[in-house]
């Protein structure tokens, strides 16, 4: 184990995979100088500019070109700088990468990683702060990953690179400098589709991912002092998501909150809540916590107004556990 940042864990994952497989390469703007956030620092010196490949500001070509190169058996990491710029290559992602295998009757494979950091960070305002992971979870053909801690950033990026499906890999910008213990083993991977249990509890289940997991953890700590015990699940992969772990948990706690930074309306929380409601009927009380349906603004009070805070999570938990304890779950 080594202590390192989330950013460094991702950098090491890529370096290890590039050593392990000569077909792995990365392409994107400014990669030769370390990339927009330094996730590629030092790699061009090791692997050269063919494999750590600079790109013009040509998002359609970065992503679309990666689709073509992936079909040819290479394993590109298309660095989109921020998830907001994936929107400049939506045809390439949704119509091309996600459909190529199916529409060719299985002839094509697109082993592509679309690396696209998400989230509210540093007052970056409406066009540089979005969390659109639910869009990609909606698209058949794509795998969707949102790591929350350094060890998962390493293990999941390695799995994403080894995966033969196109993976939309969304780091959170606010987590890049966060630190944690990371296994040194080059064979360490985290399987796609497997959630992790952040803390065990019996009163209520919180499902979350990405930076929101850390806010949910703080809420769980606050609640523990009040005698409320939360079962907190970091989903890690949104598609496919770990129904087994979520079902096991809600069967015990009978209460579920899904909390995410993304807008609540149409967010992936709705999918999880609906799946649980369909499986368990009214036996489980459910609630989604997400942002208001407003863009992210620049001024701190305006930016903060759309955050799902730890206080908001704790308040929702109290409402479901304390106020309604013993009573029938809402909706029943």
């Amino acid at each position, binding site marked *: 184990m080594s202590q390192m940042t989330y950013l460094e864990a991702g950098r090491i994952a890529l370096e290890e995979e590039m050593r392990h497989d000569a077909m792995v390469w990365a392409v994107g703007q400014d990669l030769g*100088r370390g990339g927009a956030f330094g996730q590629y620092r030092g790699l061009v010196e090791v692997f050269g500019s063919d494999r750590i490949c600079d790109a013009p500001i040509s*998002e359609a070509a970065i992503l679309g070109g990666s689709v073509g190169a992936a079909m040819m058996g290479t394993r590109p990491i298309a660095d989109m700088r921020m998830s907001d710029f994936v929107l400049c290559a939506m045809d390439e992602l949704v119509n091309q990468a996600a459909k190529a295998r199916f529409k060719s009757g299985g002839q094509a494979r697109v082993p592509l990683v679309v690396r696209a950091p998400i989230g509210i960070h540093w007052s970056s305002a*409406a066009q*540089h702060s979005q969390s659109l992971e639910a869009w990609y979870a909606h698209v058949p053909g794509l795998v969707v990953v949102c790591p929350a801690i350094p060890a998962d950033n390493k293990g999941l990026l390695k799995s994403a690179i080894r995966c033969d499906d196109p993976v939309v890999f969304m780091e959170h910008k606010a987590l890049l400098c966060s630190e944690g213990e990371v296994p040194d083993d080059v064979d360490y991977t985290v399987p796609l589709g497997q959630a992790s249990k952040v803390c065990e509890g019996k009163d209520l289940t919180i499902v979350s991912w990405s930076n929101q997991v850390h806010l949910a953890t703080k809420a769980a700590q606050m609640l523990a002092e009040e005698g409320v015990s939360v079962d907190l699940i970091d989903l890690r992969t949104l598609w496919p998501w770990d129904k087994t772990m979520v079902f096991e948990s809600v069967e015990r706690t009978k209460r579920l909150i899904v909390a995410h930074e993304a807008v609540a309306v149409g967010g992936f929380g709705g999918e999880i809540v609906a799946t649980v409601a369909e499986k368990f009927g009214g036996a489980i009380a459910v609630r989604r916590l997400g942002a208001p349906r407003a863009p992210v603004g620049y*001024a*701190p009070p305006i*930016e903060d107004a759309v955050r799902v805070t730890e206080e908001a999570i704790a308040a929702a938990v109290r409402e479901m556990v304390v106020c309604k304890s013993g009573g029938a779950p809402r909706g029943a």
Partner: protein
Amino acid sequence: MKNRSQRIINVARLRAHYLLMHRIRALEEVAARAFEDKLVHGFLYPSIGQEALTVGVIAHLTKRDLVLSTHRGHGQALAKGASSTAMFHELLGREGGICGGKGGPPHIADFGVGLLGSNGVISANIVIGAGAAHAVKLKKEDRIVVCYFGDGATNRGPFLEGLNWAAVFKLPLLFVCEDNGYAATTKTRTMTAGPGFLDRASALGVPAVEVDGNDVVAVEATAAELIRKVRAGEGPLFLHAKTFRVTGHTSSDPGAYRPKGEVEAAKAHDPIARLRELLIGAGVAVDVLDADKASAYAEMDAAYRSAREAAFPAARMAFVDVQDVGSPLVEAF
């Protein structure tokens, strides 16, 4: 076009340019100080060294004409008539900000002075500018559109689509390519094929002209001719200007990837210093020029002070101006 070697200069006009160029630089420098004071929340994209191209083109526009600026567009905003005070309030995210504190550094807009705004997505304004010009034509209005973008923006699809569109519909539009040689840390030349921007534009049916973007006299003369033609219905046209970004890409980028000496060499062509020399040669007293400079810094210091003293906008403003139909707030059941 006028023979540039003659350099028939209008001193009064050039003094106005001198003042405006200093106001732009002062705005950027004082904003950089505000960033160091940790009062700017996002990143700044400074335009220091690129003032002449802004001033020399926008000098020909009326208030009714429209400008689309770049993410590095504080100068373009100021030149179009935006208030420095409202801009500082925006940069600090305070009440009275030009976009209510919602936009921040790369999103300055002021429709009241014909500034349709800068954009955080590279190249997006090229097609939006074409659309604005399309509407001007549709409404038979007597005004034109100037659309600024960087060298890096020419490698995205909207460059091709926007220029072609403007040419097909013969729109009253001047494209201005602000070529500072870099797109973030990347030397644009290394990632751009073909003979250059002029050929790209002309291949798309948009006649293109080149000018030294750090020579405000040349920019003004060249832009005069292009804008006269655009007003006469001979648009769209394209102005390509070489300039230099003296700072890093953003306020948190030291620009260490640039070859040694490059910045120093470029400073020798500083547009403000060149204009100052010209004005001194034309008999303008040094004190007069220094007084212009001092007034620019005094204005921006005052604007910064005003912003610092202003309140932050109320949190509820986060839910204003989202859209007309439907509440942005999550219902609490």
